[in-house]
């Protein structure tokens, strides 16, 4: 009985929120051309949301990749997560962007008082989808790790549709595609690569299909070792492992700089005899990938271009 009552109240609140939102949406479309739908349906990772407003005035996003895409398209968000923003997204740490929680935990009160027209969640905040849906139309733009590029393009096209920037999205995605194709052509013969993340004195290796796997899966860099990492956290390895896999290119993501603990770009963890004995070190092919871009931002329109370009440079 109690449960039924609470779900009834929940439905009521959701209904009320929905009414307010459609009312707002209606007001916004008054100025746009007649006959154009004010809301569209977006299919996403957790179903489909039917009442996504076109050109929403107030957008809250919890995903820095989405934020990066919005930034690339010149769309201003209302609410963003509290995070240590990398250089490219530095301006979003300013107070004029409402802080609506962390990268992982939405602050529901802050979201609610930002009165958004659209909320965008992703992998780290996907669990809050149900709750956030009660505040405003919410879509989950998580990128599917199994087919990252297709998924990223599909998500970005959805954003293009929502913000009426389809042409810009198409041309930027074409640019990414071109860099990917160029990289792929060179990568096959550029030698085998190994991806490692360093943090607090320890090393974790990532293989194909992992969170950094696009280097192998999409860009075609051959793997130096068959790292079977399940989930997003890679495999703890010793320096002997790096020596024995002997990669021609060693891709390094230094997590300690992603979170601002080490200011120098040199990586003291990998500065040792065993790593120096690899082909990668001998040929000066230890590639420091931008940790914030790879680890925190991920799939955003500008950022993916930057990520792909970094790998393209390494195989040039």
């Amino acid at each position, binding site marked *: 009985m109690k449960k039924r009552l609470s779900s009834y109240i929940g439905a009521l609140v959701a209904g009320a929120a929905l009414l307010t939102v459609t009312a707002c949406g209606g007001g916004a479309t008054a100025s746009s051309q007649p006959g154009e739908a004010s809301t569209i349906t977006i299919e996403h990772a957790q179903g489909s949301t039917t009442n996504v407003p076109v050109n929403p005035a107030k957008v809250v996003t919890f995903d820095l990749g989405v934020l990066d895409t919005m930034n690339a398209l010149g769309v201003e968000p209302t609410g963003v997560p509290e*995070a*240590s923003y990398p250089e490219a997204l530095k301006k979003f740490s300013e107070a004029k962007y409402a802080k609506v929680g962390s990268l992982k935990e939405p602050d529901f009160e802050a979201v609610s008082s930002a009165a958004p027209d659209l909320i965008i969640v992703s992998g780290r905040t996907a669990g809050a989808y149900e709750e956030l849906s009660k505040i405003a139309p919410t879509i989950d733009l998580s990128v599917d790790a199994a087919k990252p590029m297709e998924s990223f393009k599909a998500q970005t096209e959805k954003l293009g549709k929502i913000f009426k920037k389809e042409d810009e999205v198409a041309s930027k995605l074409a640019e990414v595609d071109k860099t990917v194709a160029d990289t792929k052509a060179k990568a096959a013969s550029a030698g085998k690569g190994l991806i490692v993340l360093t*943090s*607090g*004195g*320890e*090393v974790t*290796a990532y293989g194909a299909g992992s969170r950094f796997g696009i280097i192998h899966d999409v860009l075609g860099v051959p793997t130096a070792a068959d790292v079977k990492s399940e989930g997003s956290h890679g*495999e*703890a*390895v*010793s*320096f*002997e*492992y790096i*020596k*024995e896999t002997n990669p021609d290119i060693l891709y390094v993501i230094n*997590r*300690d700089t992603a*979170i*601002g*603990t*080490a*200011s*120098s770009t040199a990586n003291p*963890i990998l500065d*040792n*005899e*065993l790593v120096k004995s690899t082909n990668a070190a001998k040929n000066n092919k230890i590639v420091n990938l931008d940790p914030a871009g790879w680890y925190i931002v991920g799939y955003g329109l500008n950022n993916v271009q930057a990520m792909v370009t970094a790998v393209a440079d390494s195989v040039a």
Partner: protein
Amino acid sequence: MTTTAVRPTAAASRNRTGETARLVAAAAVVVVIAVGSIFVGVSDVSLPALVANDAGAWEIFWVSRVPRTVAVVLAGMAVAVAGLIMQLMARNRFVEPSTVGTVESATLGILVVTVLAPDSPILTKMLVASVFAVLGTALFLAILRRLPARNTLLIPLVGIMLGGIIAAVTTFFAYRFDLLQTLSNWMIGDFSGVLRGRYELLWIVAVLVLVGLFAADRFTVAGMGQDFTTNLGLNYARTMRLGLMIVSLISAVVVTTVGAVPFLGLVVPNIVSLLFGDNLRRAVPWTALFGAAFVLLCDIIGRTIRFPYEVPVGMVMSVLGAILFLFLLLRKRNA
């Protein structure tokens, strides 16, 4: 927990030669395990290769294998002995540095340096961690003195609460500064990063263990309480300070070099006590040997269970330690 002999009795001195022989035998076993540990790893280092004077094998041997094994032995001995001394000072079998706030304080110290001066050398980090560890442990001991009754359960509970509060502060700041995952690197001991040039500061704990060995009798006496200690002509405050320094420094050095090694300080001294009774002069070497052997075995398991990848030694240790401890407790109950 049978006889508490400060000075060796006649029976004990008769047993002394047998005791020494057994200690030597145990040390030999530890050496055998250590040698085994040297030959476990991703690169090919085999006895024939070493005999054939293979330069590559010898390089791995000196750069990677020997340092790792030495680090494991040092950390294992020191953390176990620190647990033993902590238990004597608190007069309680159920405390160890990682349950009374010492390790938590050291971690907080590293976090503070990491936030304020991220590029500072490891020695600075270690110094700050040591200062924090000393303060945290002193706080625990001060609270203990004010506890109304020496309740067996109250002491570990107070320790756990104090440790919890310090850990909560640490977690809060780690969260604010996006350092939660780095924090977990310090909290879970792991020897995978140990190489020549990266563990040498651990030799400090070897010195501390030796000091602990020579001061062993004093801690046994101090464990009896202030009045008793003073009656025997020992400076109680000074002895407690010495113990405090040894425990705190060992914890700080180990946390900064390889990360926290949980459970060891609790399990090993209790196992030794169950097997050999409470004579500290005997207990210190046995505790050191057991600690070294236990961490060596756990590290070998951690390196082989998912070969060529590694499982942090802290994880292996928690599982094995719990099983071992339960087994010993139940066996004693039945006997």
